[in-house]
């Protein structure tokens, strides 16, 4: 059985690991919604420039194609139409675009450093570059890859041509 001192040491270590995340949460609480929106507007120049990449626009393009199909099917409450629409979506293209976007965001996050006199969204993003965020990004990538692999297997199994 673990000794109480060792347990406390271990817990203190965990708290230390979580410190960047806790700081982020504290900042979010302190700043409030209006401050975040204000900061977002203040940093919109940088966001527009960094978000204008072929990968991010590719992902947006996939979403644009996806929304009308789903909204039309859901709006009609037609299960059959929804199912056939879902089958018509190019999941391979959609997921690969999302993957590229996630990778691009991960890559660009490190580059974003904007001097600011007040805590802006970039400062918050910088704080959010904690091990936990990295883990979440990796998790999203892994899930997305898994979905894509399954999609590939299904296509190969059904003998349909691939995207």
């Amino acid at each position, binding site marked *: 059985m673990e000794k109480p001192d060792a347990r406390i040491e271990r817990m203190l270590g965990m708290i230390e690991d979580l410190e960047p995340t806790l700081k982020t949460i504290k900042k979010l609480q302190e700043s409030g919604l209006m401050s975040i929106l204000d900061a977002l507007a*203040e940093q*919109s*120049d*940088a966001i*527009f*420039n960094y978000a*204008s*990449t*072929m990968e991010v*626009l*590719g992902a*947006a*393009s996939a979403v*644009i*194609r996806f*929304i*009308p199909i789903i909204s039309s099917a859901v709006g009609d409450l037609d299960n059959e139409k929804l199912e056939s629409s879902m089958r018509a979506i190019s999941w391979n293209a959609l997921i690969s675009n999302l993957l590229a976007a996630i990778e691009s965001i991960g890559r660009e996050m490190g580059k974003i*450093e904007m*001097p600011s006199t007040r805590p802006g969204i970039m400062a918050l993003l910088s704080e959010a570059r904690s091990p936990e965020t990295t883990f979440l990004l990796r998790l999203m990538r892994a899930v997305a890859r898994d979905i894509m692999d399954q999609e590939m297997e299904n296509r190969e199994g059904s003998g349909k041509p691939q995207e």
Partner: protein
Amino acid sequence: MPKKVVIVGAGAGGGLTASRIRKTVPEGQAEITVIDKTGRTDFQPSYTLVSLGNREPSQISVSMDKFAKTGIRSVKGEVTEVDVRNRMVTVGTQKIEYDTLVLSPGVKFDGKSFPGYDSAYHFWDMENSIALRKKLSEFRGGKIVLGVTTQMYKCPPVPWEMAMMLDDYFRARGIRDRVEITVAHWARKPMAMFGPVISDPVGRWLEEKGIKTIDGFKLTAIDGEGQKLVGESGEKVDYDLAIIAPPHRPPDFVSGNADLASSSGWLDSNAKNFRNRSYDDVYAIGDAIAPSIGIGMAGVFAHFQADTAASYVAGDIIGSYDPVPYNTLGLCASDTGDAGWIAYCDFRHKIADARTPFPDCRSMGRSRILKVAHAIYEKYFLASIYGGWY
């Protein structure tokens, strides 16, 4: 002592550079002056909408006076001379000194140099867009021909975009069947300069809307009396209303200045930090550098060039400021009349090697949802320069 930063031009390049520097460098460290002959910033991609009566000029234009609230001085007037050796800009009788100069003067339209141009209309500036609006509102039927006098003009996709917008405009007026719309352009296919990813769907849309195209048409003269466009081989195209991009030239203070101009006669610059090759306190961005760096003329290029140039200027003044790498993406929120469409192209390889046939392009849309993209960018653009909501 604050550094004197002088910016020539209050459009996409100059306006955004001023606001970016102001956000980064405190007033005590930089005294910013913007000089512009019009005294205002227009959202130029909406000139098409002004021509069609869908926007009032006041909705897409902000006076430079608004710069005052952020401590930026504005001077309305035309630059007549730039003396880089003595760091001096002349505006009429005023001499304005600088420590850092950012040139984003745009282009000069030179209709007088083109045979018969005075009988044509255009929408490449506010005043002419207003004149075209009146002409279109009186148009009851006949042949409208869109064309260009030059290979290098602002917003390369716009002749075909405007043709589709005109189709929608006349449908709404219930007289589309009485109007023949033609685009006569030097490109071998509609928007061929962006490659088949863009050109093929646009060609189909034009056909679907009953818009004619005369591809590979090199306009050499306009016969105003006979109402005909004259092509390179003498071929003629009849018109009742000619909407033609005027010749674009570098501003006079550039063309006669060996320190500022590149071998092309346009402003010297480079696609990395936008500094003049001999004078590192002089930057040049926007339409007036397009021929020198091998890229088209468009506000979005000036926008991203402003981000980069402003970061270098900030670095020059405050000492430690990471430069923003130049984003070579071109993004165009375009209109097909009935819907919106976004084309986006990476010009990285085209800039690196002029022999690259076309940039790497893709598109999203055509979708009604994307009609709003143009309006959002319009508001964002003006707010990004002046703050507030216009």
